[in-house]
């Protein structure tokens, strides 16, 4: 009986991991290509979820429309996350690059991105309060029961979808011209510029991808866990950073492995030691892993330099 329950927790853990995968990859892109720990990422995630909820509940502000279909509302939520991400690019990364020639040598963009995190969070708090809101979708209770185990079909599809998106991103980075330019920027932005790569126009693409990944992840969360809240980004953000580091900085596939490992250790920890133990287990695991493998599972020696 215990064995079966643990196995069910493992299934749940892998499903939870699918939420962390996309957000971890978003962190990895920012660190790997731009050497920029982008703290706004959890807020982008939250923004997509809350905007989606708000639209599906009330419609467009000022009474311009009635409640919008949940799927379309989430789609607009994802667009909002992308736009917000571009706003962050404009006022953190690009601003400091223009002013100082290099954004990554300064801790300032990191602090600015933290500022954006709080501003976005409190705008939503003012608009909608701090309550957790229910998010109802068309397929709320589609479960697949095999041999006593419950596998939620939306969750299973989400996991597959997350992995497909990351695989697509990996192909984009490896095989396309934009991908090659991005990897060149990751290795040496100055040399990339001199080779004629338009760094200022390529970098926003990274932020568009970051917004997209966060938005997708939030949509998956809203569909599977039927709730959103202004604080939803905080929980995911810390786990995703842990997933990125466990998988290895700058490794897209590492972020998948890291996301699943974090999801697993979280659900198992909650099952055995109670709800409050999850962060201790995840971060304890991370610290121990870093002692034995400072580069993470799939990382390389040079932190975040041109790996993917």
């Amino acid at each position, binding site marked *: 009986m215990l064995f079966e329950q643990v196995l069910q927790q493992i299934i749940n853990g892998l499903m939870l991991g699918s939420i962390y995968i996309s957000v971890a990859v978003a962190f990895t892109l920012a660190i790997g290509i731009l050497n920029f720990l982008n703290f706004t990422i959890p807020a982008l995630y939250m923004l997509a979820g809350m905007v989606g909820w708000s639209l599906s509940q009330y419609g467009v502000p000022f009474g311009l429309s009635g409640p919008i279909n949940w799927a379309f509302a989430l789609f607009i939520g994802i667009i909002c996350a992308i736009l917000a991400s571009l706003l962050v690019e404009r006022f953190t990364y690009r601003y400091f690059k223009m002013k100082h020639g290099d954004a990554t040598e300064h801790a300032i963009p990191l602090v600015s991105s933290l500022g954006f995190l709080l501003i976005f969070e409190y705008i939503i708090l003012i608009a909608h309060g701090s309550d957790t809101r229910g998010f109802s979708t068309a397929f709320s209770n589609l479960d697949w029961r095999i041999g006593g185990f419950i596998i939620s079909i939306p969750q299973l599809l989400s996991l597959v979808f997350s992995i497909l998106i990351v695989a697509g991103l990996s192909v984009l980075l490896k*095989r396309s*011209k934009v991908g090659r330019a991005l*990897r060149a920027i990751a290795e*040496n932005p100055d040399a*990339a510029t001199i*080779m004629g790569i338009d760094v200022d126009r390529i970098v926003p693409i990274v932020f568009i991808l970051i917004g997209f990944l966060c938005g997708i992840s939030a949509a998956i969360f809203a569909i599977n866990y039927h709730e959103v809240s202004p604080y939803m980004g905080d929980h995911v953000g810390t786990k995703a950073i842990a997933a990125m580091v466990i998988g290895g900085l700058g490794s897209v596939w590492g972020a998948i492995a890291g996301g699943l490992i974090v999801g697993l250790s979280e659900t198992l920890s909650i099952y055995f030691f109670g709800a409050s133990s999850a962060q201790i287990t995840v971060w304890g695991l991370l610290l121990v892993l870093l002692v034995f493998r400072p580069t993470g599972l799939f990382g390389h020696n040079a932190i975040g330099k*041109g790996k993917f």
Partner: protein
Amino acid sequence: MSDPILRLEDISKSFGGVRVLEKVSFDVERGARHALIGPNGAGKTTLFNVISGIHDPEQGKVLLEGKDLKGIPSRKRIKKGLSRSFQNIRLMPHLSVLENVMLGQHSRFQFLDMVKPLNFSAKSTGKAEAIETLNSFGIDLYEGQTVSSLPYGIRKKIEVVRALMSEPQLLLLDEPAAGLNTAETNTLRDLLKEVSNRGITLLLVDHDMPFVNSLCEQVSVMNFGQLIYDGPISDLKKDEKVLEAYLGMDEKSERSNA
């Protein structure tokens, strides 16, 4: 008769009050193999940085094919036919040989062309072109190896081939032979002669005089930020200022060693 591809007019540049370049003027003829030599600290690399747009000169003009390059950033100069290699190799160490060479094609891409969703079409032609150029210079593809794992001499050659991918008219080479052994220097010289035979003008800085002598016909000599000689390399040893700048120092150092 004279048909300069590059004309420098009274270039001056200071760093923090130190005059690094003082009214430097000379022409590089189309199709020439032109060397820029001078003792360390003479301002050669600074002049290269001014030509390629990394630094702006305080005075003077850089004219490429008769057009003033003022205000054109370095990444756009490469589109105008000006390409350069660096003193320290600036290949992307974790990319493959082929990818590094293909990066050189990026200056020819339009931005919108590049971000079209899943635009793989030009990749295949670019790949064929890169492989062909590498083969024509006798460089192995080193399939599956990153550039950081290759010997220095080969990386130097790859950097030259990469610079060629932007289809330059004028190729600036900053100390291409530095750090190479004799055999590697000889193969690099043959490669650069082949580049020159394809109609590309070469302007190079180097300290290796036998290398410069065997490759270049024209030479400009700088000392303390000033141009002290500009002419055929065969007359170089007859010039008194040059003898003073080079041999004078040698004598002094010999005396101090004695």
